Every structure is written in C-alpha cells, then in structure tokens.
C-alpha cells in the first residue's frame, strides 16, 4: 500500500505522517538513544514500533541530523540526543552502515513506503566548516563556501547511490537553507544547485524525492517548486505550490496542544488537499503518543 505515491499521482487526497523519528520511538521503548543510533537492528526495531503504534502512511529512517557529518569527521555528543560539537576533524565515525542496515530491514519487513532522511549538501557543508564560519564565508569567501558544498555533494552522491540501490525513497533535509537563515539569492547560488543534482538522481531511479526545510520558505517557494521534487515538507503550508505539500500541524501543537487544537490544525491542512498531513518538523521525543494518534486519526 502506498498512499504517499497515490497522493503524488492524484489518486488520493491525503496521507499522513507526523514526522516521527527514532528519538521519540526509543523513548517510548525506554531505550538509550546512543545505542539505537549505533545499531541498525535497534534503529529498525524502534521505527517499526512507531509505525505499528501509530499506523501512519510511511516510515522515515531518521536517527539524527549528524550521520553524514560524523562520517566526514565532525564530532558529536549524546546529551542524550546527538549534538554536533566540532567542525570536521580527522577522526571519522561512520554510522552510515547502521542506517543502511535499518533501511534494509524495514524495507523487507514493512508494506509501506520507506524514506531515508539525508542532509542537503548546503547544511552538511555548514556542519563541516562550523555553522558560524560557513555563514560568514558565504559573503566573504564564496570560493571556500562552494568548495565545501562540492565536497558535501560528492559525499552525498555516494551515500545516495547506496540508498537508491536498496530501492528506497529519499527526504533531503536542508534546515540551514531556509529563508530564516539565508537570502533567496544565497539559496539560489549555494543551496539550490546541489539539491538539484541529488533530486535528479533520485528521479532517475524513479524513487520519491522529498525536501524538508523548516523555518521561513515563502520567498523560495518558486525555486523549491522548480527542483521538481515530489514532496515539499515545510512549516508554513499556506502558499500555493506546484509540488505536493507536507505539513500542517505545528511542532508546538503536537507537543502541548489539546486534541481539539490538533484536530483544528489537521482539518485546516486537509482543506488544502492534496496534501500529506504532517508535523512542521520532527516530533519532539517527549510528545504524548495520544497527540500523535489524534493527528493520525484525522487523516484516516
């Protein structure tokens, strides 16, 4: 069953996926997150648990945003969830095999579309250089910025080809490319070109390509549309888009909102069908499962 594809192809009006990652599911199972993030079988187990508990329409293989950065030499710490603490160093720690193992297990076991979350090269380059420094060189040293983005793109092309060989769909998360951070001109110059390369590769393999950018995306909607991805996961779903939108329930509503408020936001989003009803970003680990169930119920 692939309600996500049906929405993209215009056969269904809506599907649902509150953006549930491994952190929330691991918490439900009282598992130490660093163990889950470093063990493909455990990662698959927690994501399968979330899928069975909530019954949404896809699974996102998402541990944390730093898998690729860590594989390229950034250092991370678990507090208890991963946070990046250095720019690129010589010490690499590769968790990509963990993601690949979890992806293979879920693909084999579940009859639902499997997506893997990977970083957009712009945001990955920012992690490699250090976010402050990277944002400054976008103005002061564009050659260095483009070199870092190219390096990130080359890495992501190899990672992507491994994922596409398994036959899964891809979500490209590029949080630093939002208009809350950089100008639309900078987006066009630095973030757009590598996203385009990766999306073309996903589409060549006939898999579904999604883009997730939180924060302000209104000024860059036309460019996002022209990337020709299948899904745009964005915080503010009010603007008209050519691409199928994903979103509708704010992260704060899913965390603290009453059931009535969750219902109200979900219904407003569904009025914009075709749509994939989702949270505007990944659900906080502490989210009450009843809130996620309430949201999911509204699109079923």
């Amino acid at each position, binding site marked *: 069953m692939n309600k996500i594809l049906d929405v993209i192809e215009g056969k269904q009006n809506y599907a649902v996926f509150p953006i549930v990652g491994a952190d929330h599911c691991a918490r439900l199972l009282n598992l130490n997150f660093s163990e889950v993030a470093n063990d493909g079988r455990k990662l698959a187990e927690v994501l399968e648990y979330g899928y069975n508990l909530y019954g949404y329409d896809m699974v996102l293989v998402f541990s944390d945003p730093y898998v690729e950065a860590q594989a390229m030499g950034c250092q991370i710490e678990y507090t208890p969830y991963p946070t990046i603490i250095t720019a690129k160093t010589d010490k690499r720690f590769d968790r990509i095999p963990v993601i690949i193992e979890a992806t293979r297990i879920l693909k084999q076991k579940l009859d639902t579309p499997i997506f893997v979350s990977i970083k957009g090269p712009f945001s990955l380059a920012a992690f490699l250089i250090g976010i402050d420094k990277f944002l400054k060189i976008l103005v002061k040293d564009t050659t260095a910025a483009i070199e870092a983005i190219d390096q990130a793109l080359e890495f992501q092309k190899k990672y992507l080809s491994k994922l596409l060989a398994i036959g899964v769909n891809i979500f490209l998360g590029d949080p630093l490319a939002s208009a809350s951070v950089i100008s639309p001109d900078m987006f066009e110059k630095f973030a757009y070109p590598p996203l385009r390369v990766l999306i073309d590769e996903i589409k060549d393999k006939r898999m579904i390509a999604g883009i997730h950018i939180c924060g302000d995306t209104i000024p860059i909607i036309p460019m996002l549309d022209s990337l020709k991805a299948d899904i745009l996961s964005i915080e503010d779903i009010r603007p008209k888009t050519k691409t199928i939108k994903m979103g509708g329930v704010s992260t*704060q509503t899913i965390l603290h909102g009453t059931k009535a408020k969750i219902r109200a936001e979900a219904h407003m989003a569904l009025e914009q069908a075709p749509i994939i009803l989702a949270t505007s970003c990944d659900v906080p*680990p502490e989210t009450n499962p009843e809130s996620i169930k309430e949201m999911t119920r509204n699109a079923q």
Partner: protein
Amino acid sequence: MDLDKIKKAIIDMDDGAVKTLVETALKEKISAQEILQNSLIAGMKEVGRLFSEQVYFVPEVLLASEAFYIGFNIISPLIKPQQGKSKAKVVMCVIEGDIHDIGKNIVKVMIEAAGYEVIDLGRNVAVKRIVDAVEKEKPDVLAMSSLMTTTMMSMTEVIKELDKMGLRKNLKIIVGGAPLNQEFCDQIGADGYGCDAQEAVQLIEELIK
C-alpha cells in the same frame, strides 16, 4: 570626524574600516561614549532594521556583529563605569544538548547594543549551571534559546528548578529559537517569547519597565 562613517562601516560589515575609524575618532578626542552611542549602536540598530525587513539575513548580521565587537572592544575600556551603567542584567544561554548559538549571539549583540549587561553562559549549558548562574548573578532577565525539538523541553526543567529554589521573584524569563512560539512560552511558564533579536530587545524593555 563624521561618526556616520563608522555606522556605515558596520552596516557594510567592514571590520577593518571599523577598527581604523574608531581609532581615528579616539585620536580626534571624540569620547568613547559618543562613538558607542552614535556610531556602533546606531549601526547595529540599522542592521537590525535591515534584518527585520529581510534585506539582511543571518550571514550579514553575523559579519556586522563581528564589526561591532571590533569597535566595541577598542572603546569599552575607556567607558567610565557611570557612563556605561547598564539598564539591567541579562543572563543568556543556549540550552543543554544544543550547540546552535548563532541566534543567541545575535540577540546578545543587540541586547548589549541596547545598553544591557549580558552574562553569556554560551551554548550546550546544563540546567544546573543556568540555575547556579541565576543564583549567583541575580539577573533581571534570563534569556534561553533552543533550536532543536529534542532540547527545548530542558527549559521546563530550568523554570521548575528556579521556581523550586524561589529564584523567580525578581527574575523575568524569556525564550526564543526556531521551534518555539508564544504557546510554548506560556506552557512552560516563561514570561515572554521573542521571534528575533529585535523582538527580544523590545520584550526585555517591556518586562523590566
């Protein structure tokens, strides 16, 4: 010397020019206080305006802030204590587990430019360290930020702990960061939410009236 040149150098993110011009202004016997108020702070106010109008974005604000501090660090030893008397004391930090401090740093420069004393605890700051800092520094305002959905709930723990220790009486707590909003602020019992640096400054002005 025309102090507008320093203001313009800040707006142009030209730290080299700020250094030269501030040094020249001091040689010309322009007071440090005047340089601070009429060029450095004026420059950052304009940068804040350009940011809120989406002419400038985070990279430009970071570079302008850098230029501001080049000038500020030259003149700050010359500002007499009574001249530089702050309006209030603000302790600020990015919560534990979160290293995204760009927003916090921009808020810091705007708050300092508005005449407040800032104690910056940095990023990835544990709950206990924040509570200890409030107990020791007795600030008028505690400003906390988080950019991740996995870390923002630690703010609740800070507030609970401050309540438990009776440290809320003369303290206003403000919060900010991409995944937050007014609803979150209300839920966790903070006193105010600011969506950007300009709003944070206005919020502090209102809260400590």
